[in-house]
């Protein structure tokens, strides 16, 4: 059956042609992507100017313990005795008693420096990124406390689950050489 053989040859030829075409397309796409690509990777970070400390960071991260933690830019901190990030509104007394603290996990360490100043340091192992202190500091203090993705914890998902849930699109992709958006700082690594 010569007819059939012809048909077979033709099919084979078409298939080979398409195979070559697919290779070409893949090559073209790789060339295009290579031009647009860079070795530098993207990482998720919170833009503190957009963050409203809604608390989503605490619950939406794919990690059981959120990769977001609170950060203090000490240069902006007032070292207040009555810190509105540390104390409940109208605290019974200005000491580290649990009933006075705003932080649900007691993650802020209050250390006396000199009269009348106190240092406030975040214990990252306890911080759950609920943003209560951030709100307190922003509304009544200097706004030196804010939330940041900690890159030693973040697994850098292709689509950050917190970014999806963020009401103000405060989570953006930043470059590896500038992985933090710290307040009042030159953020170049």
């Amino acid at each position: 059956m010569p007819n059939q053989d012809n048909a077979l040859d033709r099919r084979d030829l078409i298939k080979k042609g398409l195979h070559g075409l697919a290779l070409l397309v893949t090559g073209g796409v790789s060339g295009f992507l290579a031009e647009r690509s860079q070795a530098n990777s993207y990482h998720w970070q919170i833009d503190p100017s957009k963050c409203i400390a809604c608390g989503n960071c605490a619950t939406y991260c794919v990690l059981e313990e959120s990769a977001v933690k609170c950060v203090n830019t000490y240069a902006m901190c007032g070292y207040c005795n009555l810190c509105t990030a540390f104390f409940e509104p109208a605290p019974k007394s200005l000491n580290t008693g649990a009933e006075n603290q705003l932080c649900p996990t007691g993650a802020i360490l209050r250390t006396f420096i000199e009269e009348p100043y106190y240092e406030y340091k975040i214990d990252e192992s306890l911080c759950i990124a609920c943003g209560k202190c951030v709100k307190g500091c922003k509304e009544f203090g200097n706004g030196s406390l804010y939330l940041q993705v900690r890159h030693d914890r973040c697994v850098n998902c292709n689509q950050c689950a917190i970014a999806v849930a963020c009401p103000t699109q405060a989570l953006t992709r930043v470059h590896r050489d500038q992985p933090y958006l710290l307040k009042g700082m030159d953020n170049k690594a």
Partner: protein
Amino acid sequence: MTEFASVLQRVALIASDIQRFPPPDFESDYTMPLPATPAPRAPWLGGVDVIVLFAALSVGVYLVHKKRSRLSVFLLMVFSLIYFGFYRLGCVCAIGSIQNVSLAIANPSYAIPLTVVAFFLLPLVFTLFFGRVFCAGVCPLGAMQDLMLIKPISIPVWLQQALGLLAYLYLGAAVLFAAMGSAFIICEYDPFVAFFRLNGNPNIIILGVSLLIIGLFVGRPYCRFLCPYGVILHHFSRLSHWRVTITPQDCHQCQICEEACPFGAILPPTGEQNGQHWAPDKKRLIPALILTPILIAFCGWVFSMAGSSFSKMDYTVHLAERIVLEDTGQADGTTDASKAFRDSGQPGETLIQDAQNIMDRYVMAGWILGAFFGLVLSGKMIRLCLPDRRDDYEADRGDCLACARCFSYCPQELKRRRISRTAPVTAGSEAAVES
């Protein structure tokens, strides 16, 4: 450009932050600490991921094409599940890389990381030469489902084909939303990644568990009916240079392999029909060809109608809608997003105008997505009218996931293994294998 904008924002921010309490002048020798900035994962580890991917693909090719051993493919699959799944927590993955590629093509300011490019391209190139070895032993999502497959049932061809169309829709939608910069839906609705992380959105976990339960009986439901990357691999695999061969020698047409395949990917011989079956079925082909432009236009129209609903995936559109609802009194109170927007003092008109522009672009994108889907539908129809010729039982090049299950079911293959394992085969044992 965006960097410049973010610098501007930060300058504005520092100005807007009210220094209610001036930073103290310490008299003691206290020095202010700097906030710790732990570095991200070292970039060379991304290179390790690519090397592992390449090695796993190469080993997969050897196991499927040379060693022809299901057990080895199974072990490779378990390794990939542990490495790419539980160790790397499902990121970066080839399936999700489609979105990064779409975004990179649509938006020149997005520089796609090289690791992601490698994860997108390597499986494609391997598939173009060796078939879907990636699906067989390297993809952690496939491995997850394959491990659950306990009692496979075969589903009717029409249902398999119809469900297969879902993957095209998913692919189209994923490319669309990623290119528009609105969402990465493949990642957002990844049903199995929550298992790798042992944590996740409850709705997605329910979806994942349901898929795994279905997967007890229907082989790899996500891979066959939803996976957007699988669509691309399907077509690349059909053009592959070397195909997965079921039998090492002549096929005896015993049909055992067809029964053994849990994915309905092995097709029976077409049989001779006096050479007739080489001619396309003109009675059906001509209407199908005529219907093609109609189908494309119709689907395009339907999807463009749905374009404004798609646009709700976009943040700006979603927010603008909420603002309008609140302004017109149709919604009570505020959401976090709308409150933050109002507090920012930006004009509502600009937002609504932006949202309107995005919606218009979505209507346009709906036309494109619909036309693509119409093309897929008519392509399937035309394919049905074209002749197929198989003299033996063969794995469908596109559907075959190269899982290597069928090999050990083939009597010819068993014979080959026995020959390679022991000394000359006696006539008796050969007959026993053949019977």
